């Protein structure tokens, strides 16, 4: 939808709830240089949600929704899990259907939108938990990469099944004692970033959501590369504070610990040289445009 169409009918605008009046007035639709820095100065695309207080998934959602470059023409696909408590409140069309089928849905959706809107860029994103991505949905996750489907897969890695009460997941660390892993998990955390790269993802990033600029950069890169090359994958550590016994204020520390040297979530990016060169060029373009925009407003 063009930004102009995200508008209220004048004759009924003054009965609309305040959150929509604000969305129309100040959200950053139509601004390809939007980013996490708009948080606070513009209406965010996400309303209240019912995650646990302090759950890092919530800040991850806010960073992602403020960073996607083309929200007026983006559609998200989710899966069953804690993330699906947030999605109804997101100001972007999004699909939940079953648990684990997200990359299959996104494959059909992205192709349908490409067929229906050949002259427009419509970005499709999957955003699902680690159980959905790596366990029940792994077949469809990887097959969409093999097939070179042009969308970005984002995994909220909280290293367990949060929504069903903290069971073992493939991305859980070895030895962790959890429900359904009563004597500790017997095998290593699945190396999905490497698997993703080997399976055909053109850009892979693994990081925590402690630093918004990093999240923004990964999201923008993944989006651009998905449009031009094919599948991209981002794995974000969003610890489930409830199930690992942390307080609501401790999520950030947990993420920082895990990304310090030697930690499992030290930021890494995997890409080919060709993609690297493309990103460099694209980011130079972005920079020049922003500079020019600044010069005009100054």
């Amino acid at each position, binding site marked *: 939808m063009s930004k102009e169409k995200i508008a209220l009918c004048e004759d009924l605008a003054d009965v609309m709830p305040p959150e929509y009046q604000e969305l129309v007035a100040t959200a950053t639709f139509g601004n390809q240089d939007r980013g996490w820095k708009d948080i606070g100065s513009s209406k965010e695309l996400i309303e209240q949600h019912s995650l646990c207080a302090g759950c890092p998934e919530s800040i991850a959602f806010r960073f992602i929704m403020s960073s996607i470059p083309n929200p007026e023409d983006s559609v998200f696909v989710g899966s069953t899990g804690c993330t699906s408590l947030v999605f109804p409140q997101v100001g972007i*069309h999004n699909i939940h259907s079953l648990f684990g089928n997200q990359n299959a849905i996104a494959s059909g959706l992205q192709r349908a939108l490409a067929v229906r809107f050949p002259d427009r860029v419509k970005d499709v994103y999957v955003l699902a938990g680690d159980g959905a991505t790596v366990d029940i949905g792994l077949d469809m996750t990887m097959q969409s990469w093999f097939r070179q489907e042009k969308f970005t897969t984002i995994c909220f890695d909280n290293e367990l099944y949060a929504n069903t009460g903290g069971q073992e997941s493939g991305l859980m660390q070895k030895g962790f004692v959890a429900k359904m892993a009563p004597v500790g998990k017997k095998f290593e955390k699945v190396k999905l970033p490497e698997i993703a790269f080997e399976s055909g993802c053109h850009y892979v990033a693994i990081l925590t959501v402690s630093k918004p600029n990093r999240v923004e950069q990964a999201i923008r890169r993944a989006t651009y590369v998905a449009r031009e090359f094919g599948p991209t994958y981002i794995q974000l550590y969003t610890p489930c504070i409830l199930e690992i016994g942390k307080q609501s204020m401790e999520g950030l520390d947990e993420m920082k610990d895990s990304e310090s040297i030697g930690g499992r979530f030290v930021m890494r990016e995997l890409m080919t040289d060709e993609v690297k060169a493309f990103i460099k060029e694209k980011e130079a373009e972005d920079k020049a445009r922003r500079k020019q925009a600044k010069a005009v407003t100054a």
Partner: protein
Amino acid sequence: MNKKVDGQNSRILLSEKVKVGSKGPVNLTVADPNEMFFEAKRKPAFLTGSEVIKEAIRRANLDMSVAYPITPQSEAAALIGELFSEGYLKEYFRGESEFAVMGQCAGAAFGGARVFTTTAGPGTLRAMENFPMWAGSRLPIQVCVTCRGINSPLSIQPDTLELYYMLETGALVWHAETAQDLYDWILGGFMVAEQPDVHLPLALACDGFFVTHTKDNVMIQEDEICLPEYDPYRSPVPCMDMEVPPIRMMRDPFVMKSNYISYMTHASWQQEVRAAIDRSRKHTKVIMGGSLIETENLDREILLVSSGTAVSQGREAIRLLEEEGIKVGLVKIKSLRPFPFEELREATANAKTIFVPEFNVAGWLAREIKACIPDNQRVIAGPHVAGGMTMPSEVIVMEIKKGLGMKVEALSGRG
């Protein structure tokens, strides 16, 4: 219990955006389906059921199909691929499993595409979680189910047990007897399933091999015409393409949080899907020649009631019995969902004995009929065959004679 829908609305209603005469795929021209189905000149074509599917899809103005091989639908699914290579549809690929394929079809339908796929037996069961999701999400996808046996043990042969599983998915379920049914209903099916007051998936069933792999004369449109394209903005739910409000929209959200949502929403949602099935009656009638059932000689005391190719076998059995002076009437059930309650009650009003031949071990159609008509001790569930067995007309003849208390010699098993 449905009210019999009659008389009114003898036309297929179209989106106001439809431009009859505009260009369709390749060399086809968009037609008014009312003309295309009922008036356009037709020519005979001698085709297998798989080829019939291809010819119907050629004219369906389809956006997308996703395929996965399983006998007996593999040929049809591959032929649709040929159509894709010729430009008759815009997207086509092989998915990784039936579960994934039905998800891919759903994704495309969420995005506003007209979608068709095919499956059978184990594929239908592998995909099963998707069908109620399709219906609950109001996705008008058409899946052609070419019925075959369900494991274990494995069988690739015709058997209609899988349809029993389909009946409460919330999808429309139709059962074609012949290749002509298949052809007409694939095209008509899109027009019914996409009505804004229906907007549900359609499982169009036919019996594997008996229909898919035998050649039959089918009357197809002579002119190079096709259906109008699907208009996703008539949908009863927002299309997920960011082109329609509200943009703060999840399909479909959890409606089960007791603190801020009524559980009744979920119950009402399920009722609404069933209501949409009922609303399809008046549209379906138009493309099924006026009724969800077809009847012959309802004044007779003995009736054969069935669906699919069991009806064809029944027709021959009736002829054989007639030679012996035993008069039997016939009811062909075309639509299983919606189920023709009222029509069946009326059609069976005079019958003293009702036989229900079926190609499955469960006898689900007999159960459906028993649940719908008064004095249901009149229903004799049989004869049954399963696992790919044929049902010679003589077997039906025998069953009827036995049911009438006549002495008959058993037709020996042919395993």
